[in-house]
Structures are given as C-alpha cells and as structure tokens.
C-alpha cells in the first residue's frame, strides 16, 4: 500500500489561485493526487524540468500517466471529461455558458492583471505605492461584473443551488481579493454571501492556500 504511486500529480504553488481551482476540483471529485510544489517566489518555474512540462512557466500542471496538461481551464475540462463523477458543469447549456463566462471573468479579466509578474512590473516601473491600488481596481471591476452577471442566477452558490465550475474559479479569487488585497467586500453583497457559503465547504477549505503542504508555517 505504501508503494502505490498516486496516478495523478499536481504541480502547484500554495498561493496560486489558479492551482487552488484545480485542488478544489480534485477534492470534489474524490481524486487523490501527489502534490508537487513549485516555488514561484524562488523562480522554480524556470527550471529546465518544469519548463519542459509547461513552457510558459505557470502552475497548475496536471500529470495523469502519460498525459501532461497545463492551464486551469484546460485541466478542469480534462478532469470533467475523464472523471465524470460529481459533475462540475450543469447539463443545461445556458447555465453551462454562464459558468464558462464567470470562470473567464476570473481567469482572463481579473487574475492575469494581479499576478506576481504584473504586480512586480507595476511596483518597479510605476511605483511601489501603485501596486495594491492597481490590483484592487482590476479585482473590483471584475467583482462588479460578476455581481451583475450572477445576480439573477445565483442560488446557494454562484449559478444555482449546486457547486459548479463558476464556484471553483470564484472562491480562490475571492480569497485572494480579501486576504491579499483588502478588497472592500461591502460593495459586493452576492459575492460576500458566496464567500460565506464556500467557507463552510471542507472540499473548498482544504484547497485554500494556507492548508497546502508548501504554505509557510504560521
């Protein structure tokens, strides 16, 4: 039993919200995986080994036997198809499209504008004081859009009463917005309520940054 190698490997960084999305997905689907930390702060994503896995140097990367998949959206769709238990996309096409939209607001319009590389640039080229306001501005713009997009569709969770893709992409972004960038959540009542709901789900909480093997100890 000790020699059984876990089939799924996830290259991840504790604080990466993109990795967090997939950690939640794996938890929800009951999939065991080997956690392989990549220290982005120390530049481990630039090692030749990791570059071979993912030339753009991002986490997460999923390895499933011979298959190597990078990018959280691609990994998500792969998991949905290969491991259909606990489906994370609704069958109704309109609702499915809503999930895709919400996920993309996060992964195209919010996260890339507040990731490590961009913040470093703002800090160096504009000013260290501008870093947090820049991040807040883009996060709040995205949160405002999500508030409007989801308001007629949300139930207990983002797109109804069940957890779907939108929730997996939203939860880590909310966590980052609140914990790292001090976003004023009073402006976002729906998102605040969703955040509360996620805080009660063990599969979500176990995936959060502070609970990862490579999180710095308190």
């Amino acid at each position: 039993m000790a020699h059984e190698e876990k089939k799924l490997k996830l290259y991840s960084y504790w604080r990466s919200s993109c990795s967090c999305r997939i950690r939640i997905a794996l938890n929800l689907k009951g999939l065991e995986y080997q956690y392989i930390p990549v220290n982005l702060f120390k530049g481990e994503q630039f090692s030749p080994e990791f570059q071979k896995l993912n030339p753009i140097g991002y986490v997460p990367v999923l390895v499933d036997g011979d298959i190597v998949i990078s990018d959280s959206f691609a990994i998500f769709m792969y998991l949905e198809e290969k491991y259909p238990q606990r489906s994370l996309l609704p069958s109704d096409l309109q609702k499915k499209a809503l999930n895709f939209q919400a996920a993309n607001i996060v992964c195209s319009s919010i996260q890339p504008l507040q990731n490590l590389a961009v913040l470093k640039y703002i800090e160096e080229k504009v000013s260290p004081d501008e870093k947090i306001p820049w991040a807040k501005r883009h996060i709040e713009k995205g949160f405002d859009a999500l508030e409007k997009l989801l308001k007629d569709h949300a139930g207990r969770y983002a797109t109804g009463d069940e957890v779907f893709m939108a929730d997996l992409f939203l939860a880590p972004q909310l966590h980052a917005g609140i914990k790292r960038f001090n976003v004023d959540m009073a402006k976002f009542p729906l998102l605040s309520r969703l955040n509360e709901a996620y805080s009660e789900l063990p599969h979500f909480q176990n995936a959060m940054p502070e609970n990862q093997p490579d999180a710095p100890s308190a």
Partner: protein
Amino acid sequence: MAPKDGGEASSKLVLYSYWQSSCAWRIRFALNLKGLSYEYKAVNLAKGEQFTPEFERLNPLHFVPVLVDGDVVVSDSYAILMYLEEKYPQRTLLPADPQLKALNLQVASIISSSIQPLHMLSILKYLEEKVGSEERLLFAQTNIEKGFLALEKLLEDFVGKYATGEEVYMADVFMAPQIAVATERFKIDMSKFPTLSRIYESQRALPEFLAASPERQPDAVH
C-alpha cells in the same frame, strides 16, 4: 457570411462586435468556420458605446464580443466558443483526443488570459499616462513575446499545417487574430517564432479568417 433578413429574428444569431477587436475576430472566424450566419451589431468602442446601459445589460464587463442566440446571451470569446462548440457541433473546433483537446484549450487560454488582456487599450492608456508611450509599447511587446515564445515551444511536437495538426481548431481560431494584431499593431518580429510564422501563413490563407478580418467588417473605418 452575409446576415439574412427574415421574420424569425429571435432565432437568428446576433454578434455584438467591434471591427478592430481581436477577441471579436476570433468569434467571427469561428462562426464562419461553422457556416453560421449572424447579424452584426457594431459597438463603437472608440466612442464608448460599450458603456451604454443597454450594452451593460448584455455584458457588465463592457467588452465585445457578445453573442445572442435567442434567449441566451453569452459574453467572453472563450465562453462563446465553448457554447458554439456544443450548440452547433458541425465543423468541430476541438479534437477528440484528450491531450490535443487540452492543448487547444491551453493555447487559447495563453492568448486570452496571458497575452491579450495585457495589451488591451485600457491597460495601455494607463501605462501611457504613468510610464510614457515607449515603455507602454515595450510592455505590450514583452508580454506578447513571452506568450509567443511559450507557444513556440508548446506546439513544436504537435504542429502540422495548423497549430495542433492538419485541421483548424480552437488554437488556430485564437492564434491567427492575435498574430495579426501583434504584427500590425505592436510590430512584433515574427522571425523569432518560425513555427508560429509557418502556422500563421496557413491560417491567414483561410477564407473564413479573411472574411472575419477587421477591414471587411461593416463598421470598419478606412
């Protein structure tokens, strides 16, 4: 690809688009590939039409493209493409093989998350104000080249006539408009990316791509 007139307006596809938007170009290209006709509704981004209350109802992020299909409203080019793939499966834009499918999704993500958002107009305007126009161009170029370099490496084991083999897929749909914009607007030297250059030659020869290009749109300004 001309829009049809007719009484069944509610069953016709409507695309909110701006001629110069590379994101809208992706969907115009995809609609052409799938042989889907649509009504073109221009949103003049230069005049701020994306901020009207009507448009905000369609997309609270104020971006194009937005697709309206009867009662369904989908914004964001990635989400629109996934929707089109499922609703109109003719001329599929995702391969069946899981590794290749994932590769297409990843390429599209690199473009729509790691490249395009960093050179969209609002970002560049901010940078122009804060760091000047030279630095602004450098920022755009650096991010484009970083993405293109990654794509160059990522695709080298999979490339054929097109990005991921002998057929046109989602990766091509996202890539071709991005390369066009990179060369025309940001003066990227494509000789640094021989694989991408070769693929682009195939992509830009497609009538579906050409018909989707900015200059051929109803709202193009010449």
